[in-house]
């Protein structure tokens, strides 16, 4: 239960008792039922602790990166060991004597993780060790693998996921060649993939143990963004090699829909937008993909960048299978046409768009689908009294109109007037709907 909901329940219960809807004892049981989640997992103390320890750790690394040449080898090596042992000792003390203090536990994990890196950095600069940045980060990643599990600390896992992503990006030789950098790691791709199992396993454990906690939400954002980055680079590199933009966009659509559905089904930690990372990223990706297909010029652009014939590949088949499974689970759960059916249907729409040979027909098909999907959103939003959903639908329709307007050969004044009129219409409609909702309630 969210903190706001708990406060609402706390405020309402006395009146329920007075009206004899629930007994005094039942009211106390209800409060106790949700108190634990509210006090231990959702306190702002965790955020401050994480931020504080992260800043201290990064500050120490930054100060040491100055390379104090006044310090001799003995001082430097002692410093490296003292920082590491100090962080280990602090984590031990917290785990042994303050294990119920989640904020301190999280913070000590972050500090331990960062001090491991600081120690390795001191050794690296003291003995002028060679190797790439990825090599350094890989050693850091390997040596700090267990920290998140042992405390447990979502903060340490958060940093580990980011580190892993950087190492993974560095290990992609084709990506490095494209960017003209040399950052390969001594870890093999299989080893790096295996390391991902560690933090994926930890994330699974956290979802089971404390799904509603802010620390788990932080982890969700890290995983959602890092997996997204990994996917985009992977698909981008493949698109660069096979030169088939149609297939690439369909693969992206499948990925974003899976993200959206996974968020809807399992991986959301509340009702607010910032508590639903997978759903948000998935939906945003889908809308961008859909709007990219609206223009008259898209068909020409796709033909230009799809010189190779479409062929099925392992990634596409895997994503299609996963999409099928999550879609079946979603239909079983929802049992009705969802308000955002447009998002879910996007891979199918893009597939049909790709199959239609006539460019004009394909363009009309995708535009009609978006308008229909957005209208359904507005209809559902009005029915369920969700202003956000109505705005979303209206925004999609407005963007479709704008894109066509930009395609047309009008001068800047005409375009400017059209933008202003659409904007005013948007604001007026919004105000009218708000007033209607207020009147109904």
């Amino acid at each position, binding site marked *: 239960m969210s903190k706001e909901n708990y406060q609402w329940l706390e405020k309402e219960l006395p009146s329920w008792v007075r009206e004899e809807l629930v007994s005094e004892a039942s009211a106390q049981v209800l409060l106790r039922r949700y108190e634990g989640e509210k006090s231990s997992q959702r306190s702002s103390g965790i955020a401050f602790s994480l931020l504080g320890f992260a800043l201290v750790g990064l500050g120490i690394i930054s100060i040491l*990166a100055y*390379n104090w040449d006044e310090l001799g080898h003995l001082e430097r090596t002692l410093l490296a060991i003292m920082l590491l042992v100090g962080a280990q000792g602090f984590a031990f003390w917290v785990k042994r004597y303050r294990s119920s203090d989640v904020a301190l536990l999280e913070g000590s994990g972050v500090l331990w993780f960062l001090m491991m890196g600081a120690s390795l950095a001191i050794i690296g600069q003291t003995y002028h060790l060679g190797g790439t940045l990825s090599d350094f980060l890989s050693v850091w990643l390997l040596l700090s693998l267990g920290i998140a599990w042992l405390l447990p600390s979502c903060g340490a896992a958060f940093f580990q996921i980011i580190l892993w992503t950087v190492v993974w990006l560095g290990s992609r030789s084709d990506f490095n060649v494209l960017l003209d950098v040399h950052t390969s790691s001594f870890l093999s791709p299989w080893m790096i993939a295996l390391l991902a199992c560690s933090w994926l396993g930890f994330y699974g454990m956290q979802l089971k143990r404390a799904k509603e906690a802010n620390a788990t939400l932080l982890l969700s954002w890290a995983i959602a963004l890092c997996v997204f980055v990994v996917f985009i680079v992977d698909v981008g590199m493949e698109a660069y090699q096979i030169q088939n933009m149609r297939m690439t966009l369909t693969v992206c659509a499948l990925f974003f829909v899976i993200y959206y559905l996974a968020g809807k089904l399992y991986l959301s930690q509340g009702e607010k937008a910032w508590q639903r990372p997978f759903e948000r990223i998935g939906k945003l990706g889908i809308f961008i993909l859909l709007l990219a297909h609206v223009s008259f010029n898209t068909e020409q652009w796709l033909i230009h960048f799809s010189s190779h014939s479409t062929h099925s590949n392992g990634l596409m088949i895997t994503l299609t299978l996963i999409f099928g499974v999550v879609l079946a689970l979603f239909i079983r759960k929802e049992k009705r046409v969802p308000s955002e059916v447009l998002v879910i249907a996007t891979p199918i729409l893009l597939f049909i768009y790709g199959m239609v040979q006539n460019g004009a027909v394909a363009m009309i098909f995708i535009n009609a689908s978006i308008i229909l999907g957005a209208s359904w959103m507005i209809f559902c939003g009005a029915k369920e009294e969700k202003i956000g959903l109505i705005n979303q639908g209206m925004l999609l329709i407005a963007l479709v109109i704008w894109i066509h307007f930009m395609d047309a050969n009008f001068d800047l004044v005409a375009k400017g007037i059209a933008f202003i009129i659409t904007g005013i219409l948007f604001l007026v409609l919004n105000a009218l709907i708000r007033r209607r909702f207020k009147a109904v309630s």
Partner: protein
Amino acid sequence: MKQMKHLLWGFFGILCVLQVGVIGVQIWSYERILKEGEVYYFNVLPLDPYDAFRGRYVTLRFENANKAPTNETDIPENTSKAYAILEHNENNDSIKEIRFSKPKGNDFLEVNVYSLPYKSTVQQDDASHFVYFSLTFDRFYMREDIAPQAEKLLRVLSGVKVKAKLRVLAGKGIIEDLMVGETSLSHYVLEQ
């Protein structure tokens, strides 16, 4: 439950020992090289990049230390490791030859091979049977304010030669200092 707790503490201890152990072994091995290693001097060209974690350093381009001949005919295919045999010279120390089997003694250095000679050229005893390689160290960390000054100064004073003072022991080597004549590069920059 209690057993699980004991196991968790056991892993906690193992992780701590492992982390300190890795740091400790690194310190011990590098200090041993610094103490017991043979000193070699190589001409280098320093450039100044930046590392977010370890600070500012100068990248070193080693002169006469990126290719050397090999007398071996039986070169393993796709090998990335080899051993550079070092020798002292009057002007500059240099790499005498490359071997693919570990030599005896201490006057050699492990290197990363990136180009091997063609087998046919080796067998024909051709003069072009060079092995191209890179040394395992290529950077020298300096104080944040000195590193860019060093690069700038050396660019202006183009005649000044910088030498890397290497310590080598049993195939492993580290850079002890960068020297301009008999002076450390850091001191030289500060004096200038």
